[in-house]
């Protein structure tokens, strides 16, 4: 049982690692492929897991995780519970911008089993951006992959002058004005 820590390993030159956590493996695969197809000038490692904690055996070969994206499917309450359980196995330093929530399945309102309040509360509680994306549609998947890639670059420190702490400005919602 190893706690995922953001700063306990040295970064590798010109590379970044992202971890996707969620119950739907095929969706994770598709998103990972979309991220790999994007044009980028650094090496990227995509790790995929159904839940945290990650197994301790491979901890020494694992690179430093720069961004963790939790995938929640609004049509399955199980995915929300899984993510909530995984969140307790993370080091608190991750929540300084290195975590984001990807919410899929909102398009079909009649099939939603998770209420919107729960998801918003999760985002507020863990101070992390909540991105709504319909990963079933090709165009939105490509757009999400581009967003994640950009966030990953910032989290891995490849952008001088921009730090992951700035992502809190992504969370200002126009509804609350």
């Amino acid at each position: 049982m190893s706690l995922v820590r953001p700063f306990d390993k040295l970064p590798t030159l010109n590379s970044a690692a992202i971890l996707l956590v969620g119950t739907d493996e095929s969706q994770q695969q598709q998103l990972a492929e979309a991220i790999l197809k994007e044009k980028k000038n650094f090496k990227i490692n995509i790790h995929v897991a159904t839940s945290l904690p990650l197994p301790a055996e491979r901890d020494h070969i694992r690179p430093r995780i720069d961004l963790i994206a939790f995938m929640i499917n609004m049509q399955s309450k199980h995915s929300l519970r899984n993510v909530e359980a995984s969140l307790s196995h993370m080091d608190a330093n991750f929540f300084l911008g290195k975590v984001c929530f990807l919410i899929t399945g909102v398009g079909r309102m009649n099939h939603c089993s998770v209420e919107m309040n729960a998801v918003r509360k999760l985002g507020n509680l863990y101070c992390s951006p909540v991105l709504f994306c319909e990963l079933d549609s090709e165009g939105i998947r490509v757009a999400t992959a581009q967003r994640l890639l950009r966030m990953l670059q910032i989290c891995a420190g490849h952008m001088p002058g921009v730090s992951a702490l700035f992502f809190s400005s992504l969370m200002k919602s126009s509804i609350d004005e």
Partner: protein
Amino acid sequence: MDTPDSGGMTPLGRKTAETGINFTSTTRFSRGLTFIRTHTLFGQSPTRRIIPQTSLLQENVDPQKIAFLLRKQWTLYSVTPMYKFSYGNLKEYSRLLSAFVAAEKQKGLAVEVGNDLGIKVTLSTLLGLKGTDQDQVAVLVQIASRSQLPFENAENKVVWSGWFCCISGDDLLESVPEDFTCLSLFLANGAESYTAIVGSWFQKTFDCYFSRLTISPLNLAWMAAMWTGCKVDSHMAATELVFSVPCIPQSLDISYAIHSEDAKALWDTVQKTPGEVTQEEVNLFMDCLYSHFHRHFKIHLSATRLVKVSTSIASAHCDGNIKILHSKHLIGVLTLLTELAISQIQ
């Protein structure tokens, strides 16, 4: 989480407190239409619902008519407010609607002049179906056809019925202008073709819009929790939940039936305030049922979609079909459905 000291995070700290206040203030939808439009975000369901204690006990209730509404499968529609609908002209409307239905039915058929298809439409009011005094009186539409054979008695057999109602909808529809009548919920039983014809007549005459009311799994879970908690004196049928598992090539349906006494006992331990149901209680109730199922069958029902709920009081399907079994809880069920219809219109 504590707000960190850095300047970039302080606005977030303030926002969290405001969001907390926002959640509790939207529960009691006591503001007008415009407020709801700006503040109801998609999919937001109330965190708390009051179980209405009103029942049908009003003097001019016709028990036969009410019994007619029970134990039938009704298809649900939500209706936008109707323009210049007047209760005084019901006879006139019946006449016009009969002519319209007859004309639609005869379209494309070569029929002799003077042949009477024998279709008669009646519009009447259903007294007693009101949550509060400001609610509009419910309207019942029935299509009866006379049998064609000359030997049989000319009895009218009801082939289609539909009724409009709006129970306790005044909270949500305060700022509706004068000429509009809000009868937001429409229930239909009978052939789909008649529903389409009647619907299009109402839409043309009163400039309203009918749309099919589908029930999301979230709302079905609310119904399961609220209806399990209701006391039923006579025979209690088992509480049954049907889940749909998306599988290729054909979807799989899981039916989970619970003895109603056990379900009620579970709900009694979960519910804290009698007469009020919160979202957390509904979630806890459903989670208990899911974990019980998981312990026995190792299947995560929370990863499936709830499609049908049947309790001793009523049964509801996600496609918008409902069957109400007890007159005592008719108003309670209709209040919830009216709320869903109004939130769909908005």
